[in-house]
């Protein structure tokens, strides 16, 4: 007799877009993002000094240092944006009672929760993209500068031996600056941030305090980076290792060090870790849905 109200992707999208707009208009994120961009931009100045003779060696050292700073900024600022952005969602909704106006419409709680989650994922994505563009800009700038002496040699020298050596240097610097593996590193950082956002959302389904949400999420973040070590240390106790499995192993997502050192990171590995992240994230969201659908608001 009555119409059925099915799960609606459009409603999820509406809520996600609204969440994204609201976060963007909050100054916190713009400040965090500007801070990240400043850190990334200044990475090129910190890496100026070097004592080596070989242009390519100097360039390699400087590029490594830049990548290190940029990946660090991406990871830390990204983490702050993902965690803080998610932690305030439900407390704000409850405090402003906007959640009443939404859930009193024909909107499913799952749609609401997913919409909120995707809103912060979108915010995180945009932040990561902006930081990556800046990262690339810094690398482009630095590549041009670092390969200038070698390029000058290519232009001026008469000796074919020297010319070839300089050409090789230019190629080497270019290859190191624009290493496509950087994309793999950024992708895994993003998957990690999505996972952290999901965990923060899960925490906020049973708490009412934003500070509590952030604190627990940070705890999970640090535990997640230590859990790999702990597992190795306590190998002798399988039960303990089993329990530690509950904590996500966030070190898996950190391939930046390998990329910086020039170690090969196969796509298969990236795929596997992304899969791990998505499975874990789905489980966390399912738990969040279970708690939230029974919650009194």
């Amino acid at each position: 007799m009555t119409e059925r109200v099915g799960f609606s992707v459009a409603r999820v999208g509406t809520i996600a877009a609204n969440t994204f707009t609201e976060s963007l208009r909050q100054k916190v994120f713009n400040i965090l993002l500007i801070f990240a961009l400043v850190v990334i931009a200044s990475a090129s100045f910190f890496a100026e000094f070097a004592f080596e003779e070989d242009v390519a060696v100097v360039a390699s050292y400087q590029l490594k240092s830049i990548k290190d700073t940029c990946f660090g900024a991406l990871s830390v600022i990204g983490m702050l944006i993902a965690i803080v952005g998610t932690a305030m969602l439900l407390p704000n909704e409850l405090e402003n009672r906007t959640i009443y106006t939404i859930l009193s419409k024909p909107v499913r709680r799952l749609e609401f929760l997913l919409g909120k989650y995707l809103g912060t994922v979108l915010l995180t994505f945009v932040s990561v993209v902006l930081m990556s563009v800046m990262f690339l800009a810094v690398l482009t700038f630095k590549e041009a500068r670092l390969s200038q002496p070698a390029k000058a040699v290519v232009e001026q020298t008469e000796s074919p031996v020297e010319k070839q050596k300089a050409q090789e240097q230019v190629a080497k610097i270019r290859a190191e600056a624009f290493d496509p593996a950087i994309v793999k590193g950024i992708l895994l950082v993003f998957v990690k941030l999505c996972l952290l956002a999901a965990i923060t959302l899960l925490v906020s389904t049973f708490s009412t305090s934003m500070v509590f949400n952030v604190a627990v999420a940070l705890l999970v973040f640090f535990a997640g980076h230590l859990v790999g070590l702990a597992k190795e240390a306590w190998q002798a106790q399988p039960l303990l290792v089993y329990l530690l499995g509950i904590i996500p192993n966030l070190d898996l997502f950190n391939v930046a060090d390998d990329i910086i050192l020039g170690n090969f990171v196969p796509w298969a590995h990236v795929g596997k870790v992304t899969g791990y992240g998505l499975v874990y994230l789905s489980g966390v969201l399912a738990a969040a849905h279970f708690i939230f659908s029974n919650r009194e608001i």
Partner: protein
Amino acid sequence: MDAIRTENLTKKYNLGWRKGRFLALEKLNLRIPEGEVYGLLGPNGSGKSTTLKCILDLITPTEGAAWIFGVPATKVESRLHVGFLPENPYFYRYLTGGETLEFYGQLCGIRGAALHRRIEELIELVGLAKARDRRLAGYSKGMLQRIGLAQALIHDPRLLLLDEPTAGVDPIGSRDIRDLILRLKQMGKTVLLSSHLLAQVQDVCDRIGVLNLGQMILEGDVDQLISDQRRLSFTVEGLPAGGRGQIEQAAQAAGAKVVGVEHPQTTLETLFLDAVRQDKRGAGEHD
């Protein structure tokens, strides 16, 4: 079919570990036929908001159940034709009035030209044309209440639940809101509104129920409840000075002309106070 029906609706709030439970609403049986404006009255903490939240499935009743147009409140479908204005609404501070309505309209599946037409209409109806492009962070309480009403009406629902729609609004704003409720009634909508200010709603409600400490202590038609059958009032004209004490026996003898005898109206205020006084459990907010 009843727009709203509740059966033994009971809510006990969990107060946390080892603090027990708090009985906020006890065995409420409400029936609101379609087209009626029903006023849920009672002092602060009497369970009005709890009732509305149970009907909207925002909280789960400890016992009993509620239906909206015959559909159990636990189903999403029950909310297809309902608009809700929460108590002291705030909304998204960073959105403008227009954006807010757009958001709620999209949630209800209205899009494109139809949505824009509807927003125009509602902005006009609640009188926010000038504030349309301003962010809600700068809205006054009365304006928030209006945007809240517009939001509740966006999908042209058959039933409206308004929690304290006139609370904290100045007298003119409150008058406007009552006029709007009357207009909705003329359009055939059902309205369930709550209020602790009895005088403010007596002229819009067909029927009222009075809650105290979570129990319905009085219910009936407004006309009947406010006409007092025990007394008569004389409306006299040309009464000489000092004749006041003699009116009862001497109105005619004093040469005054009796122009009307009618049942005087008591206000809901006194009606309510009487009812609460008879409620042996006490009155008002409990701890």
